């Protein structure tokens, strides 16, 4: 496995050369009945890195995020965050430590407004006081393009806005590492450009990013390392171009063109 320093803006904020591993998962196994959705997956992310995760449908990408974020316990393996063992920690503890996730199928708080959704994240996960949380939430809404919908009930928003809301809520918890699950699907080219700019700004602010995305050209604009999964295993990882050329990766994508 090759380690790549994160490029560009991120480096301006952190001049310590070799960055520490911030999130690390060792030999994770997650079974659903007889299915091994995660079959001995090891996964490490360094501080300030932007990692892409790809793989065919059902590869176990979302399951990996859920395992990392503490949505459900794993059957085997260990997870640590910032040097601390979190294998058995609750989702809220992991979030408090600085690990945030978005849901591939958005799960907004439907009885609350868009602003309230983000505000609760800013207060609970972000640990912000009343006034500070309002500023944080408003700032996040502006950055994710949701400000015009601030006082609209989340139940009245469409899928794309709900995906934005997923990102907004995660950012509002002031994470160190953010796990983004297919937030680009369904966006127009212009909207994708905006999304990439948003993610770049998060990177520039020092956030570590892990992004599952089927839209490869968007993903490759952001990430410095790519992990390809299939059938619950990591097929290949490393330099994005190299990974995409890997024969096993091409085989896994057989029938579904990688580009």
């Amino acid at each position, binding site marked *: 496995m090759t380690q790549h320093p994160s490029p560009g803006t991120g480096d301006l904020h952190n001049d310590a050369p070799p960055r520490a591993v911030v999130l690390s998962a060792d030999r994770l196994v997650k079974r659903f009945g007889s299915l091994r959705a995660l079959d001995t997956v090891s996964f490490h992310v360094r501080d300030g890195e932007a990692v892409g995760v790809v793989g065919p449908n059902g590869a176990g990408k979302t399951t990996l995020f859920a395992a990392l*974020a*503490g*949505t459900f316990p794993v059957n085997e393996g260990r997870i640590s965050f910032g040097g601390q063992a979190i294998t058995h920690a*609750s*989702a*809220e503890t992991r*979030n*408090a430590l600085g690990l*945030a*996730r978005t*849901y591939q199928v958005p*799960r*907004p*708080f*439907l*009885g*609350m*407004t868009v*602003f*309230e*959704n983000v*505000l*609760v*994240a800013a*207060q*609970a*996960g*972000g*640990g912000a006081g*009343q*006034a*500070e*949380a*309002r*500023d944080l*939430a*408003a700032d996040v*809404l*502006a950055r994710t393009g949701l*400000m015009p919908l*601030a*006082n609209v009930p989340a139940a009245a928003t469409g899928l794309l806005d709900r995906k934005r809301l997923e990102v907004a*809520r*995660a950012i*509002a*918890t002031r994470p160190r590492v953010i796990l983004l699950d297919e937030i680009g699907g369904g966006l127009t080219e212009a909207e994708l450009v905006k999304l990439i700019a948003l993610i770049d700004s998060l990177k520039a602010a020092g956030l570590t990013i892990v992004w599952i995305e089927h839209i490869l050209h968007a993903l490759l604009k952001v990430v410095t390392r790519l992990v390809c999964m299939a059938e619950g295993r990591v097929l290949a990882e490393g330099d994005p171009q190299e990974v995409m050329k890997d024969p096993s990766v091409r085989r896994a994508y057989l029938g579904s063109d990688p580009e």
Partner: protein
Amino acid sequence: MSHTHVLAAVSRLDKVLIGLGAALAGLLLALPLFGSPLIVDKLTLLMIYIILAVSWNLLAGFAGLVSVGQQAFIGLAGYFVLRLAEAGMAPFPALIAGAVVVLLVAWPLSWFVLRLKAAEFAVAMWVLAEAIRSVIMFDPLVQGETGRSLVTLNAIDADLRRTAIYLMAVASAILVLAVSYRLLRGRLGGESQAIRDDEEAAGSVGVSTMRVKRTIFLISALGCAIAGTLWLASAITYQPRAAFGINWSVFMLFMVLVGGLGSFLGPVLGALLLFALQEAFGDFGAWYLTGIGCVAMLFALYAPRGIIGLITDRLGREPLSMRKELDVRSERRGR
């Protein structure tokens, strides 16, 4: 850092309502000076209903925890008052202490019941209420079905007693309303609603789901306990079957669902309606329960958001809404 983003100001209507509420509270506190004993007794009951409705709404409407066993805390509170009085505590301190002691039961219970899923929680609470009642009926002090009177309270002059209990009831209702207003406008309000809407997602944004649910559960239990001691104080006699009766849950459900689940004002309106219906039809016995059932059904069919929903549709906004609205004008100024 200067804070540029503010919540939308409290609306004119809400300011008027809060002012009216304060004036009404003052009027209620002064009522014993001129009201007849009958009115005082009836209003004590109304205050008990308001406390119960607000407590149940906190639990079900804001945290999504639907319970049909809150009578456990009503009945327990009465029992603890009896026990404390028996142990020599003066009646009025016993009324207050009895409600607080209920928390010592509710707290360990919460560890168990709050791990259950929605329907299991509702049923478990009812089973617990029944279980606690049967245990208490073994206590010779309660004398099984017969029940027992709070004799030390009965010894106090009737007028003085009536006034004191009434004032306690009004003060408790004001307290419960004020506390829930503060909590719901603050962080706990957002957190509990997030749990109600999607507990897993709430955890993923850092909400300590167990802590929040337990806090709401305990506040709600305390509210029911206060109502329970007030009820014992006005009835004097403690009968376990009545104190732990499922009809308390029926009343709470009625008041909150008909008034407006998850709103601030709805439960108060629901309590007023229940009170009015009992005043009008209470003499018809079983028929009056049928009537209450019919009213609930009509609302479920034609106005599922309750009285508050009807008012909201009329006014275009919910009076005394707990919604936190971002002032988008301040947003423009701030940028």
